[in-house]
């Protein structure tokens, strides 16, 4: 059976798109992009992270256009990103330069600089707050005023801006963790070249950090449950703002002091400590620790922790565990690729399905004639 070209449906498609607009507008409510930016921070952060494009405004606009669908918002952002020229590469961002807003460790009670909870839902009761259904701006303004007044009285600022040392560096200085020399090998860019296997560490991290939150979390969880061999202790979770600098595009001799500051990005960063068995100089097995690394745009600590688990899994390929198989992990966590492929099943498959039906009919016809 050959392929049959068909056409039609143009009017129906146009009407369907009108219907989509109708559904968005029928309740006569308008949500401002700035409202989404101000009140749906976690959603905006996830869209930026999964689309690999940091722009709270564009992410909020995409959420509005997609009516809150994550996969659609990420798709729109990725599509828009492909229309923009890449003007610069940043200088190397060192996360020690983070202006920390939140920082905790599950490994040590007393970390240098202390544990700062910042803003988190971790300690809230997960009970629906029905008062939010009728909150007013007046009440909110009053709450804000009271809070600011309380802080004014309670807070005594220090002398200078604090930058917190990393827990892992502290442990390295103590000689408890092995150190690594700075590795300035130019990273692979998976937006410029197809992912190939075995993947470089940089390709793995880039793929993981833009992975779909649910997919990365699910696979990290699978590793903990036995479909992998990594069960870490979180050394440090930090959330904060990282400054971004860009070098001059044409000046041949320039130092860091000649670079441009362009702004800052919020990220969540995690170092997980994973116990491993290594052989010492006497060829005896002893316990050591390796570090799994996770980072992503915005405040999305679950994703960053799951990424740190998968990073460590993929550092140690194990054929018998799916979460240690980089093709399995890296090829299935991208939002646009996964949702796009699943969605394509909705597209017309008339010819292929008719072909399958014909085969079934033929088999049944032969079966019936044999019975006769």
């Amino acid at each position, binding site marked *: 059976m050959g392929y049959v070209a068909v056409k039609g449906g143009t009017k129906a498609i146009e009407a369907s798109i009108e219907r989509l607009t109708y559904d968005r507008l029928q309740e006569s409510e308008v949500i401002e992009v700035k409202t989404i930016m101000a009140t749906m921070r976690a959603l905006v952060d996830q869209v*930026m*992270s999964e689309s690999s*494009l*940091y*722009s709270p405004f564009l992410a909020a606009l995409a959420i509005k256009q997609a009516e809150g669908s994550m996969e659609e918002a990420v798709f729109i952002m990725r599509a828009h990103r492909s229309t*923009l*020229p*890449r*003007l*610069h*590469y*940043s*200088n*190397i*961002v060192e*996360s020690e330069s983070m202006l920390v807003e939140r920082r905790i460790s599950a490994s040590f*009670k007393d970390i240098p600089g202390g*544990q*700062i*909870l910042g*803003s988190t839902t971790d300690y809230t009761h997960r009970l629906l707050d029905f008062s939010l259904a009728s909150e007013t701006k007046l009440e909110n303004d009053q709450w804000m005023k009271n809070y600011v007044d309380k*802080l004014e009285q309670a*807070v*005594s*600022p*220090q*002398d*200078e*801006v604090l930058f917190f040392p*990393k827990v*892992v560096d502290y442990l390295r200085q103590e000689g408890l963790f092995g150190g690594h*020399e700075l*590795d300035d*090998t*130019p990273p692979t*860019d998976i*937006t410029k070249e197809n992912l190939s296997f075995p993947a470089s*560490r*940089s390709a793995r*991290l*880039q793929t993981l*950090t833009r992975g779909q939150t649910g997919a990365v979390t699910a696979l990290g969880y699978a590793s903990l449950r036995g479909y992998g061999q990594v069960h870490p202790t979180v050394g440090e979770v930090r959330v904060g703002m990282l400054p*971004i*600098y*860009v070098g*001059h*595009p044409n000046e041949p001799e320039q130092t860091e*002091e000649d670079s*441009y*500051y*362009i*702004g800052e*990005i919020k990220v969540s*960063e995690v*170092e997980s400590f994973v116990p491993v068995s290594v052989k010492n100089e006497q060829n005896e097995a002893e316990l050591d620790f*390796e*570090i*799994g690394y996770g*980072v992503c*745009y915005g405040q999305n600590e679950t994703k960053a922790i799951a990424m740190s688990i998968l990073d460590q899994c993929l550092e140690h390929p194990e054929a018998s565990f799916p979460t240690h198989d980089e093709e399995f992990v890296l090829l299935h966590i991208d939002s646009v690729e996964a949702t796009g492929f699943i969605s394509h099943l909705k597209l017309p498959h008339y010819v292929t399905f008719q072909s399958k039906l014909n085969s079934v009919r033929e088999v049944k016809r032969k079966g019936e004639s044999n019975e006769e």
Partner: protein
Amino acid sequence: MRRRRRTEILVQANPNLAASLANEIKQTYTYKEIVTPRHGLTMVKMRESAQKSLFYIGEVLVTEAKVEIQGEIGIGIIQGMHDEVATQLAIIDAAYNAQLPETLSWTDTLKAAEAEINRKKIKQQAELMETKVNFETMDV
């Protein structure tokens, strides 16, 4: 004042600062727009802390503008979509590159703005310290 420090101040300070410095230049000198403000991407290269290697975390939306004053090119780059600010930053960059005398008088203004930025950051950090955990060890 070197570019890194002054752009840190100009981007983080009240936007009126960049506007007023750029206006000062525009009143005395003519400038030519080499690149009108355009939106584009900056790929962010990051060092991970487990093995100290490099990778790309993703791209950041930026606005970039380029202007020329007295034969010197100035570049303005800022995160997000801020066409006017990008042009103002480019004019200020060109003014420094052309060593215009006005730039000498800007140092004190920029230092004052820097002090204000730091004061706000210190205050915000102090407020965050209200959420610092004070562990108490229990006798068991």
